[in-house]
């Protein structure tokens, strides 16, 4: 693919990122605000030699992804909050069967049917596994359309590398807004060899893709092996962006769309010579611990979210009581604005 810049939405960038990463199986079900992904995949999967299926439900879509991944494909499904709730059964099975897959959640307001306004209220569901059982997903939260494109590709690479489901967690604003994107097809198209995949047992013993361990002790052994994988990922794959951390008196912590607004607030406050920094977690699981180890007793953190405090708990865990952690959040369609953030900072400075 040529290196060129195109103007596309966040949803389209995720779809194009998937295709550039060699995604050859997509199944999905329509739901706002991520419909551009399913439309884009419908338009381009055939051309790129992949399989596109509009499934009868979110549940069927994630289980088709399970099957395609079991057969060795690079597979993806996408949805928005209520649809992601439906997919949790399948995500748990994918995690339990050590299958790679990429799952996109372009979050909208909840609980229930909620609304179609942007939100970040699925953070707990995304970072704590979401379905039944003791498992994790790698969760990436892009902050721009370019990053949505890039992280989707990274997501496919890591899904294969660690045999783990990867979630791209955006919100309605990121999904809908358009920005120029530089296309940079990474050299990970072929993916890894998958000797565990189902392909017919010619010349080898049969492969079994399963998450059922009935023999006494077998499930515990398996779960310990999952935990070892998670420890390795925690060590190697935490990602964040840090801004003005060294001299900061208050560090804002925000991800995705919220981090863009927080960044504007930081630059306004810096212009006014206030010492404000920003930590933008890019991976929500593993949650980046490193930037919270700053030794400065006077430092305060301000977590800003489009929720009533979900990432807040991870920040509190990372800070471990060393510094005060304040919070500003809205949800149900409310988005904390620059002025709200600035006012809050002035209060706690």
């Amino acid at each position, binding site marked *: 693919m040529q290196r060129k810049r195109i103007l596309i939405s966040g949803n389209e960038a995720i779809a194009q990122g998937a295709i550039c990463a060699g995604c*050859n199986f997509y199944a999905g079900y329509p739901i706002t605000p991520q419909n551009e992904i399913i439309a884009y995949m419908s338009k381009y999967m055939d051309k790129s030699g992949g*399989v596109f299926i509009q499934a009868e439900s979110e549940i069927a879509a994630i289980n088709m992804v399970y*099957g395609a991944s079991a057969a*060795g494909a690079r597979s993806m499904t996408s949805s928005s909050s209520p649809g992601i709730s439906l997919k949790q059964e399948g995500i748990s099975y994918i995690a339990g069967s050590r299958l790679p897959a990429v799952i996109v959640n372009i979050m909208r307001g909840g609980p229930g049917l909620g609304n179609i306004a942007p939100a970040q209220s699925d953070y707990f569901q995304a970072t704590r596994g979401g379905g039944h059982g003791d498992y994790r997903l790698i969760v990436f939260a892009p902050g721009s359309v370019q990053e949505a494109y890039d992280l989707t590709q990274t997501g496919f690479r890591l899904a294969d590398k660690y045999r783990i489901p990867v979630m791209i967690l955006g919100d309605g604003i990121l999904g809908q807004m358009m920005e120029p994107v530089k296309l940079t097809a990474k050299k990970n198209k072929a993916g890894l060899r998958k000797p565990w995949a189902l392909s017919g*047992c010619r010349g080898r013993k049969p492969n079994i893709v*399963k998450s059922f361990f009935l023999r006494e002790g077998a499930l515990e052994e398996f779960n310990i092996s999952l935990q070892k994988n998670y420890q390795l990922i925690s060590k190697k794959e935490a990602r964040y962006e840090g801004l003005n951390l060294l001299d900061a008196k208050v560090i804002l912590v925000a991800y995705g769309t919220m981090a863009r607004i927080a960044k504007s607030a930081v630059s306004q406050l810096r212009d006014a010579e206030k010492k404000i920094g920003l930590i933008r977690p890019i991976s929500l699981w593993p949650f980046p611990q490193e930037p919270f180890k700053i030794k400065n007793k006077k430092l305060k953190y301000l977590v800003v979210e489009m929720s009533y405090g979900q990432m807040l708990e991870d920040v509190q865990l990372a800070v471990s009581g060393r510094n005060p952690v304040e919070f500003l959040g809205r949800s149900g369609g409310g988005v904390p604005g620059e002025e709200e953030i600035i006012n809050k900072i002035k209060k706690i400075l």
Partner: protein
Amino acid sequence: MEKIFTKPESLYDVPTHYCPGCGHGIAHRLIAEVVDELGIREKTIGVAPVGCAVVAYDYWNFDCSEAAHGRALAVATGIKRVRPENVVFTYQGDGDLAAIGTNETIHAANRGENLTVIFINNAVYGMTGGQMAPTTLLGQKTSTSLEGRVKEKHGYPLKISEMLAILPGVYYIERVSLDSASEVLKAKRAIRQAFNNQINNLGFSLVEVLSPCPTYFGKTPKEALEWVKLVMQKEFPLGKIK
């Protein structure tokens, strides 16, 4: 001397975990014999259900996947679309295929997925302790219909095969039974047909197998076979449906 009867290569020589008189062992073997005879063991991928047959892959000597309860046909769709050169089949019970997975079943059939479905109908939930199934007969006693299935409370036994037969995407449906040696041979012919259809790219093929569950029929193995023949077949008549 010519050997005229042997264990199929597609079936492991292992002790069974199924109850005495259960139909699963026969059905597993019929599939293994057909896979051997068609010479497709090395390209077959089975999808095991949730239920008593969840560990079917402990008996079959070819690639297999599990699927969540009811989702076997969605999983099989994913596998087959990625690997159209392989032979992909699901093995599902009545609860799996006709209750929790009805949606996946109907839509895979309606898309005309080129898959083979072996549908084991024993009119009861076995693994969980003999509860009422979608195919439980009127009057049949189960642990969740203690006085017998009553149409006013529980509705009617679901004839999913007849329902599927009206879909243009469906190529072949036949109902067979394991109640006697002659019926077992007919069942094998139907299973062979359903695999052959897939090999010839003819589309969605399903064999409904009426199968005894003596444990939750509350009968001896012999009585269970008689019940399948004399009672179950009245509600679920044998033969080619499509």
